[in-house]
């Protein structure tokens, strides 16, 4: 993972024409950009197009970034912006409603314990796709590699820093509820089954 000072130096080198520095930045941040795009609900060719647009924007702006050491935050913010542009252009709604509070079901801990020891984590992705859109965004950002700071997340989601902590708690409870529901549905559908659903095949 690049430290802020290293990120700054790679950005300056790339801006000065150093191709290897650019490749290093791509290696570092392409997963982060992808997490943001997946978090806002795009996948497949649409997600790939948005990623490409974000990296083209980065080339265009690399010599005029105000805070070169926060390249990751810039990329995350731009990815979210481009994602919403695509959603709006195709008439899909961009949800910015507050996340409602839900209680975690009693059996969620047991379901999660079972998942933690399972080889296949697909059930997590399935459940993640069912929780409120803002939660999908936030949890993707919170688990992106390399990690974003709370300040970076607040900047890219356009929320106050203090919004993150409480919302994170609510979102994890939404996920617990979705996981418990999926596990219960699987028990009903296939008695004796693994209790774990499979994620739709991604690439």
């Amino acid at each position, binding site marked *: 993972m690049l430290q802020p000072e290293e990120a700054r130096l790679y950005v300056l080198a790339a801006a000065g024409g150093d191709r290897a520095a650019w490749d290093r930045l791509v290696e570092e941040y*392409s997963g982060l950009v992808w997490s943001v795009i997946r978090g806002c609900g795009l996948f497949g060719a649409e997600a*790939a*197009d948005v990623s490409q647009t974000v990296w083209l924007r980065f080339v265009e702006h690399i010599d005029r970034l105000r805070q070169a050491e926060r390249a990751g935050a810039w990329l995350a913010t731009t990815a979210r912006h481009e994602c919403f542009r695509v959603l709006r252009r195709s008439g899909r709604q*961009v949800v910015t409603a507050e996340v409602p509070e839900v209680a975690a079901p009693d059996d969620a801990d047991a379901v999660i314990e079972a998942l933690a020891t399972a080889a296949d*984590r697909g059930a*997590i*992705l399935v459940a993640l796709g069912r929780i409120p859109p803002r939660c999908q965004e936030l949890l993707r950002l919170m688990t992106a590699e390399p990690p974003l700071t709370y300040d970076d997340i607040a900047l890219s989601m356009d929320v106050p820093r203090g919004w993150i902590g409480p919302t994170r708690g609510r979102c994890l409870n939404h996920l617990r509820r979705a996981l418990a529901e999926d596990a219960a549905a699987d028990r009903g559908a296939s008695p004796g089954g693994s209790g774990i659903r499979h994620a739709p095949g991604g690439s």
Partner: protein
Amino acid sequence: MNAGGPQEADEQLLELIREATAAQDAVPDRVVDAARAAWTWRTVDAELAALLHDSTADEGALAGVRGAGTVRALSFGAGDHMIEVEISEDGDRRRLVGQVMPAPAPGERTIVVDRIDGGSLELELDELGRFGVDRLRAGLIRLRTMGVDGRVVTEWVAI
């Protein structure tokens, strides 16, 4: 109950998400390749004309009616230099009609359409800076032209 308390339980669940996305929703290789290749479109010594307005994205609520027959209007700007473009759709083909402002000097009356998937198209500007092209394939494009103070290139935009 999770033995470690709620804080630990939250951290554990976040770690599970991290593992799941890393293992099963990692960035595809071709997406990383495209990111690397973006470098080849680096321009030096050109002023960047930002996308200032996109009628379909900025007037979000109306975007649902987008389709055959609707015209999308884009404006790019760099200082006093503006490029306005109207795009109409016909399947996967696009018709572009636009204008460069202020009108270019004689001898500088060209505008280039760069396509991300390769190939550039040079168009003539008339004395008012107007241009047009028909049956352009949908995809990411940008425009390059001469402004009053040198070369101007627009941001990339999906059409």
